[in-house]
């Protein structure tokens, strides 16, 4: 099979497996889980194979080019009358996002091994959600991108509403309303691009050649950026995410925070910034301030959270703020820092949500003050929690630092006083990150064991696998960022060249 067909298979496989899962008889929990795991493992193998193939050989954009060059590209007319194409392909940015998504889906499946009732519905919805995300990351046609993106919303709503905890109906409703609002803005922007372009095209690469009217760009850019920004957790439109992520079941929290939100920042970069450079430049200072606000705000609010999931959700607000901050600096180092941070945050937050789920499964509480002394009872989980926590606070040698260093450097080289102040604020906020991470780690793991620690056992083999994979990714990204960064640069340069056109 040709690689482009394999690329399409990455979203067909989850979708087909969802269809097959529906046909499973009710009550066959074990079979459902095994099948879902097999499907997601196959997909991870497929994506890893594609990533390796991409590493070995991929087309390079000529220097100074403003057009993204895609590997494994395929282009079929889907609805020719309206110039809607099924145009897929990957560059280094989407390839790395695909890898992240593949890893997190696989790990999430293993982390959901404890799901008992209605596991069929759970995995059917998870597979549809995954299909939507995989499809979005490879789409280079705005219409297809939008369709795939919308495909993720309904399973998200149902998964949180059915399988969540706490105020799950409210959280699901809030999340969906906010994301729908974002989608409305995105749709507005996409239709604007389609009609204003004069070529009636949804193709991202074709649209990047068009110099849109400045007046159009001035409203279309903020609409698109904000629409994607809501999905990507941009302050102060982040309010859906803490409730949504805290209420969602473990695998869904991992997937939503780790991968789904990245669709937002990915869209900001790939669509809003790439296609509307003249609108982007004047607006970016506004978004820079919002991003820096999110970094600081999320960190301070996280300090006061008692619920581990809420703490991690606000930590995500802070870390996603760093992604937007990197984007807002509009230079190569900042952009690559943003993409690195998307990867780093994806792995880290997935690991933390995974751990929180496992800890909750043992202690039946997520409240930091109710736990103490878990270290002695579950050393493997505790050490994993500490590594993930240190990655979140940006310890060198782990993924977070490699990303943050680029973002901060991008800010200091951007040259504008605002960028300098924003990045200095972001650097200082990492101290607050240290406070909430250590507060949580010390609070639940250290100290004398209390009632919540009674009868707690360490991770089983099935629980260890996702943690080992996620932590290995965090460590690899932290120790060897050089090659990854060089790859990302290749994909970022056309976007940057277009921004500076």
């Amino acid at each position, binding site marked *: 099979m040709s690689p482009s067909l394999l690329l399409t298979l990455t979203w067909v496989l989850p979708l087909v497996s969802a269809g097959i899962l529906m046909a499973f008889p009710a009550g066959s929990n074990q079979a459902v889980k095994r099948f879902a795991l097999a499907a997601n493992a196959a997909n991870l193998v497929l994506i890893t194979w594609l990533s390796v193939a991409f590493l070995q050989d991929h087309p390079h954009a000529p220097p100074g080019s403003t057009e993204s060059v895609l590997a494994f590209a395929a282009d079929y007319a889907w609805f020719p009358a309206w110039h809607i194409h099924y145009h897929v392909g990957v560059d280094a940015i989407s390839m790395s996002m695909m890898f992240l998504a593949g890893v997190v889906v696989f790990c999430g499946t293993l982390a959901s091994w404890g799901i008992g009732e209605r596991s069929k519905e759970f995995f059917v919805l998870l597979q549809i959600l995954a299909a939507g995300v995989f499809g979005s990351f490879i789409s280079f046609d705005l219409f297809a991108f939008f369709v795939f993106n919308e495909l993720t919303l309904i399973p998200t709503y149902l998964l949180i509403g059915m399988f969540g905890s706490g105020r799950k109906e409210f959280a699901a409703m809030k999340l969906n309303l906010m994301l729908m609002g974002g989608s409305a803005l995105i749709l507005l922007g996409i239709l604007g691009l389609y009609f204003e372009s004069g070529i009636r095209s949804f193709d991202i690469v074709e649209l990047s050649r068009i110099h849109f009217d400045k007046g159009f760009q001035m409203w279309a850019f903020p609409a698109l950026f904000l629409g994607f920004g809501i999905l990507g957790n941009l302050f102060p439109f982040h309010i859906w995410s803490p409730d949504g992520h805290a209420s969602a079941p473990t695998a869904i929290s991992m997937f939503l925070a780790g991968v789904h939100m990245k669709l937002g920042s990915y869209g900001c970069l790939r669509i809003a910034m790439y296609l509307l450079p003249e609108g982007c430049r004047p607006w970016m200072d506004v978004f820079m301030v919002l991003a820096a606000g999110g970094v600081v705000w999320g960190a301070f609010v996280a300090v006061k959270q008692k619920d581990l999931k809420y703490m991690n959700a606000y930590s995500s607000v802070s870390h996603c703020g760093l992604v937007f901050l990197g984007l807002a600096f509009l230079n190569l180092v900042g952009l690559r820092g943003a993409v690195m941070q998307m990867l780093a945050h994806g792995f880290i937050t997935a690991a933390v949500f995974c751990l929180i789920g496992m800890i909750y499964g043992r202690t039946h509480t997520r409240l930091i003050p109710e736990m103490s002394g878990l270290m002695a009872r579950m050393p493997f989980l505790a050490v994993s929690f500490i590594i993930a926590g*240190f990655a979140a606070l940006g310890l060198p040698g782990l993924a977070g630092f490699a990303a943050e260093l680029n973002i901060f450097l991008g800010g200091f080289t951007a040259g504008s006083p605002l960028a300098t102040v924003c990045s200095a604020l972001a650097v200082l906020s990492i101290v607050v990150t240290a406070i909430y991470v250590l507060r949580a780690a010390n609070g639940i793991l250290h100290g004398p064991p209390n009632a919540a620690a009674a009868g707690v056992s360490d991770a089983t083999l099935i629980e260890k696998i996702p943690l080992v994979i996620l932590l290995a990714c965090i460590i690899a990204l932290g120790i060897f960022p050089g090659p990854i960064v060089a790859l990302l640069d290749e994909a970022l340069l056309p976007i940057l060249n277009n921004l500076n056109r």
Partner: protein
Amino acid sequence: MGDSTVIGPLGENMGLIGYGILAFPLLSFLINGLWLGRKSPRASAWTAAALMGLTLALAVLLANAYRGIVLANPGAFPARAALLWEHTWMSFGLGTDSVLAAKAGFLLDPISVMMVFVISCISFLVHVYSIGYMHDDKSAGRFFPLLSFFTFAMLGMVVSGNLIQTFFFWELVGVASYLLIGFWYAKPSAVAASKKAFILTRLADAFFLIGMLVVGISAGGFGFDRLNSPEAAAALNHTVGAGFLTFNLLTVGTLGIYMGAWGKSAMFPFHVWLPDAMEGPTPVSSLIHSATMVVAGVFLTARLFPLFSAAAHTLRVVECTGAFTAVFAAAIACTQTDLKRILAFSTLSQLGLMMFALGTGAGAYPASMFHIFTHAFFKCLLFLSAGVVIHAIHSNDVRDAGGMRKALPRTYWATLIAVLAISGIWPFSGFFSKEEILHAAFASGHYGAFLAGLCTSGLTAFYMSRYFFLVFHGTRGFHGAYAGSAAAGAAGHGGKDPDAHAHPVREGLLMTLPILILAVPSALIGYFSKGFFMRAVLPSGSGTAEAGGEALAHGGAAWLPAVATVLALTGVAVSWYWYGMKKNGPAFPNGKAPAWYRILSNKFYIDELYLFLAKRVGARLVAAPAAWVERRIVNGAFDWVTGAIKRMAFVQSLAQSGQVQLYIAVALLGLYLLSRFAGLAF
């Protein structure tokens, strides 16, 4: 990664030695941490010590080879600094033409070689000592990998040739110390101490990161060869900003970097984490205080000395923080009752000496490095011997000790040597390095710092001999008699050492051997290495070498050693008068300690001030309001909007009542309005 290997004038094998020095501690961490530590703590302990022994052997080879190079190139200063190898870790720009890059390298120069030797030597001895110390501890399997990791991080820091590498390992040193200070994690005080150490140094490191980026970007590179060049200082030395908000980039950048050193070396007011760090096992304290962690700050300042010396304001800050901390910590040490806290404050005070020496200028640079060197040995000895005493009496409190001279004779003699060394008594090692610092401070004309140094010498002799008399003289528990009176409010309530088990007082061979070995350099190394430091250890970078030589040439007042010795002897004498044979300290009227004594024993209430700032200001004034606004206002906006939509829907639903009369009435009203205002004709 592998590219651009820079081979110095040393040949291929030296590069391998460099890899080995870093690889063995890392290997020890990985083997013991992932596997051996859980299988067999005993085997893990011996493996770790053996690997550290190999590291030490390589460090000795390296130092010896380097000594040969220095001797062979007497005048040629740049030849003395060479990169054994260097790999690009991450480049901040496109491809190879980028000047901004983070590199991982192994830099050979006088201070890195000196530090590699000190770290591997001290670490090896501490590893050996720990085999005995952690013998009965169930968590020994977790201890040795962390100890090796700590060593690895510090070694990576000192051999770095690039500021980003320094920062990288700097943070790893921080996290290793966090894990080791909180090693007995079931003890709330240990957990709190580790958190305090990490967060305070992290706060300082945030400024370090900002300073590093400012300096690196403006100077056009993060390599020390670039940063320490006169061009870098010139490129940085310009003012940015407008109106009243103007900064000199050189001052801002170097101050930011110095903030990192400030926090790591626990200079006032960042010092509060260091005494609490005593909660860790004693071998860890010994390592933190002598060769790793705290000297990192002094080392960083020395590493960037040529850049710092171009920034007069920064150098002034270095001098003032150092001089103040030296006296401040020495004064506090005089009243503490916790064995390890006395030593901790003495470390603070000695670090202050090293720091202000750097602040006084290039002339004191060799003296400062010399003092790092001698201090490492006698401070390590003091901590290790304190560990023996703690093991013996199951308490950290000097008042529970007393009369240990008979029970622990070998420890007694070794400690005596170290106390004489730190007090600056001739011919012990501390005398030479301290004298050099005072000489250089006097010669540079910084008389304030010089007086602070003299004052510190006197106080050091006083509190160290007080410590010595209280612990080793008198009779066991004798001093407990006054426990209730003078130090009633003292924070140094000696908690029981949790690893202390009921076994008789003994001096195990594994624990005493490192102490006895350390007694040799504590006594002699000052005399024998003085010449090397004064001749070879000069600030890197062109130009300053000559300046250093000049400063040394005209320094040296003949009366200085005499004055310093008299001061030190006075300190010992006062201490003997108050705490010597069967005495309990100064007699206060009414048996109640006066205010100055209480202020000192409460460490000027700085910890309380921090607590106030963190709990009242940080948590109540910032984080809590932020959480409230997030809940009520930001999320409230969503609730308000959805609520408003619901209410609007309710109002609309009133119209859908099913009453045909109402529908007809509304329709007629609509028709009327249309005809009236829209001009619709019927």
